[in-house]
């Protein structure tokens, strides 16, 4: 492409022109119309897609960096019920540490999980006090790391069942079902 000397175009070059020439040139508009219809259509499609995929189920969980949830192809929607997290580093109830995983692994029976049992019983009392007219539903969510030993999970759900939480739910990541 050939290199041209500046001038003769729009912008600052206009200052070099005479008054008459400038008047003639300004008759031609320099503004360009931009067709926004396609952009609005595109943005509308994105908004609709994001709204359809919007999910607030993750808000019910206490996300921890040391917990990688196991995946499953089926499952029901998460409800807001008490959450117990189980990882190799520790066991928490509603985000508060209640037991050490290593000591629980080394012990048997209810030993090491007294804190969890007490927290579950307190939560049960609170539920009954707040919702006096309703029956206790006995629901609890266990969010366990996929690589924790089964013994750890077994001991946690046994404590939950002992405290009256018989509807134990395990959190999973929904994966696509293979054909």
């Amino acid at each position, binding site marked *: 492409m050939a290199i041209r000397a500046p001038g003769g175009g729009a912008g600052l070059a206009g200052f070099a022109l005479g008054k008459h020439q400038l008047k003639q040139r300004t008759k031609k508009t320099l503004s360009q119309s931009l067709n926004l219809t396609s952009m609005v259509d595109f943005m509308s499609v994105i*908004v609709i897609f*994001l709204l359809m995929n919007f999910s607030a189920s993750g808000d019910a969980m206490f996300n921890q960096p040391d917990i990688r949830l196991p995946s499953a192809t089926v499952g029901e929607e*998460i409800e807001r019920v008490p959450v117990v997290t189980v990882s190799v580093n520790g066991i928490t109830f509603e985000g508060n540490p209640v037991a050490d995983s290593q000591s629980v692994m080394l012990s048997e029976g209810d030993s090491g999980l007294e804190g969890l049992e007490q927290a579950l019983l307190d939560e049960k009392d609170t539920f009954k006090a707040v919702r006096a007219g309703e029956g206790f539903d006995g629901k609890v969510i266990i969010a366990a790391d996929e*690589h924790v030993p089964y013994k750890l999970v077994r001991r946690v759900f046994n404590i939950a069942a002992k405290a009256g939480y018989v*509807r134990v739910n395990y959190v999973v*990541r*929904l994966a696509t079902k293979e054909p």
Partner: protein
Amino acid sequence: MGGVNLPEGGGKRTLDFELNLVPFIDLLSCCISFLLITAAWTQLARLETIQKIEAAGGAGGTPEDKIQLVVFDWGYELLPPGQTESCAIKKQGGEYDQTFLRRELQRMRTERPLMTIAAVAAEDKLDFIEVVGVMDICVDLGLINVSLGQVPGYRGEPKPCGGG
């Protein structure tokens, strides 16, 4: 700006009018930003179990409607409803054969429509993900009442499932 052309009525005054799209684009941009920031890209779900205290007898139910599945480090052991002899699905190439397990459970479900309870157990040392894999298959096949428990006592050497 978006322009709309209406048919002229024959008068001198044009009926064109312009719709200001800038606020609309601003609104859409805000919506997209908000939804992108708050989007949950990993979908979470829950697998429900009906849990009993182990000392109280595990999953409950009658022998006619309950299947027992045990996850060992060598594979799966299945005790079909109403039977005393269990069968085994051994690992294939170091991996649990979930495809075979699904097929066997599907066959049992077809033969025994009353079978709706699954009592799943596993060895203590196994990873929790192996148990979830079995629970996932059970729930997917319509076993509405799944419970977890402890490995039962030794029931003898199981024969291979499916008569193989």
